[in-house]
């Protein structure tokens, strides 16, 4: 479903964020990308959602090179790949409900569909009663769940999560991870980038380890080993 083929990303001659990275992800997989800060995890995800372009190599999604897509096709790709981030990227002046509805409005969905779907995803992430709260009135874990709900509302094929638990305490961390597992069990592919050793070891799923921009290990099930 997703294939990185000899991908390199070089910002300048001294620093390469990614070096000749190749691996693929099958539909329905739950895969973790691990590595220290700066290992290239985020860059890899940015290449997939076409936020950045590779210096070399190709990134395929459903057999299409995403970097050969025309600009008007990219929004459709992004609706098939839901992205969540460490800093949530919620709009502070909108409520939880409006943040999720916004993603649907942007895609030109009709109002009736929005009114139907937003409560459903809010319920799915366990925030049925928090729809009218603004992000500042929510805890870190709740904010991240709103972000997950927003990513889910397009019924994406893939969820990419870039350090989604980086700002959360252990209890909230596990809430978010359990939610990701639930989403994966419902059939959505999940790519989780993290450097949280405990999560990786407890998940016991496929692990791709990165170090200095290169893949050093790809095991299924894998463990958090960096050396």
């Amino acid at each position, binding site marked *: 479903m997703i294939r990185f083929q000899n991908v390199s990303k070089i910002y300048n001659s001294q620093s390469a964020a990614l070096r000749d990275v190749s691996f693929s992800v099958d539909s329905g997989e739950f895969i973790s990308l691990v590595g220290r800060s700066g290992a290239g995890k985020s860059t890899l995800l940015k290449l997939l959602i076409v936020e950045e372009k590779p210096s070399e190599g190709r990134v395929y999604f459903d057999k299409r090179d995403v970097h050969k897509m025309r600009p008007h096709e990219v*929004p459709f790709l992004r609706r098939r790949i839901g992205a969540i981030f460490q800093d949530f990227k919620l709009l502070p002046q909108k409520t939880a409900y409006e943040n999720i509805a916004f993603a649907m409005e942007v*895609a030109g969905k009709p109002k009736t569909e929005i009114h139907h779907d937003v409560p459903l995803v809010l319920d799915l992430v366990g925030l049925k009663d928090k729809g009218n709260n603004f992000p500042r009135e929510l805890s870190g874990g709740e904010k991240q769940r709103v972000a997950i709900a927003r990513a889910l509302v397009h019924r994406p094929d893939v969820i990419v999560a870039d350090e989604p638990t980086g700002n959360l305490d252990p209890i909230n961390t596990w809430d978010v991870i359990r939610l990701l597992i639930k989403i994966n069990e419902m059939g959505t592919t999940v790519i989780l980038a993290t450097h949280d050793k405990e999560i990786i070891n407890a998940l016991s799923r496929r692990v791709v380890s990165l170090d200095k921009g290169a893949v050093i290990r790809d095991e299924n099930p894998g463990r958090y080993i960096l050396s």
Partner: protein
Amino acid sequence: MTITLLVWSGLLLLNVVMTGILDSLASKIDISVYFSLDAPEPAIKDFQQKIQQLSQVADTEYISRDEAIDVFKDKHSGDSTLVASLQELGSNPFEASLNIRAKETGQYGSIADFIDKTEFKNIISKINFAENKTAIERLSHIISVTRQSGLVLSLIMAFIAILVAFNTVRLAIYSSREEISVMKLVGASNWFVRGPFIMEGTLHGVFSSFFALSVMIPALGVIGPRFNSFLPEINLISYFYGNIWQIVLLQTAAGVALGVFSSLIAIRRYLKV
């Protein structure tokens, strides 16, 4: 943007004034060809016909010897000495002449050259182009220079206007950059993101044009009559009201184009993600 539109409209009216002045000056320029006293009238008529056929010639006016003396007498009817001295002469001392007006001031040179080379040269006693040549050439030079500098000034003002409008819109876009990045992230198309800013640019243009007009009308009420008193050929107020819809339309179109263009440029960098 209001100021820019005001300047543009001001330039437009200035151009009307300038063209008016230049046209009225240009219509006063002509070439007069004087024929020798014994030149037969049919030959002169032939010559007139030939000149009339030139593509550069707008019109010609033949003044026969008799008409010339009548004009002179009319002009100096109060001056008895002059009239008496004419009678003393016995014969008509005036030469027949042909006044030629070109379509454009720059064409007088080529007309004069043509006359110089015709077979009618032997009946011509004098062409006054040479005498007026410097004045004619200087005037046509002034005409073209003023038009060019008007154009350059308009372009400079357009550039400044775009810069100002661009920065205004950029500030608005900067304050919503977070929203834009989230929009892009959740799969908004570029046109969806641009839409509100283009709308904003359009409204900027429409309101600026409205403000510019509301400043221009009273200003014209003050300037117009003063202008009229020293340049009676050009009536700014009647020109303005005669063309008000075109001016409003042009001003609004310019404002909208400016606003939309600036929005499009300003938002470009935020759409690259």
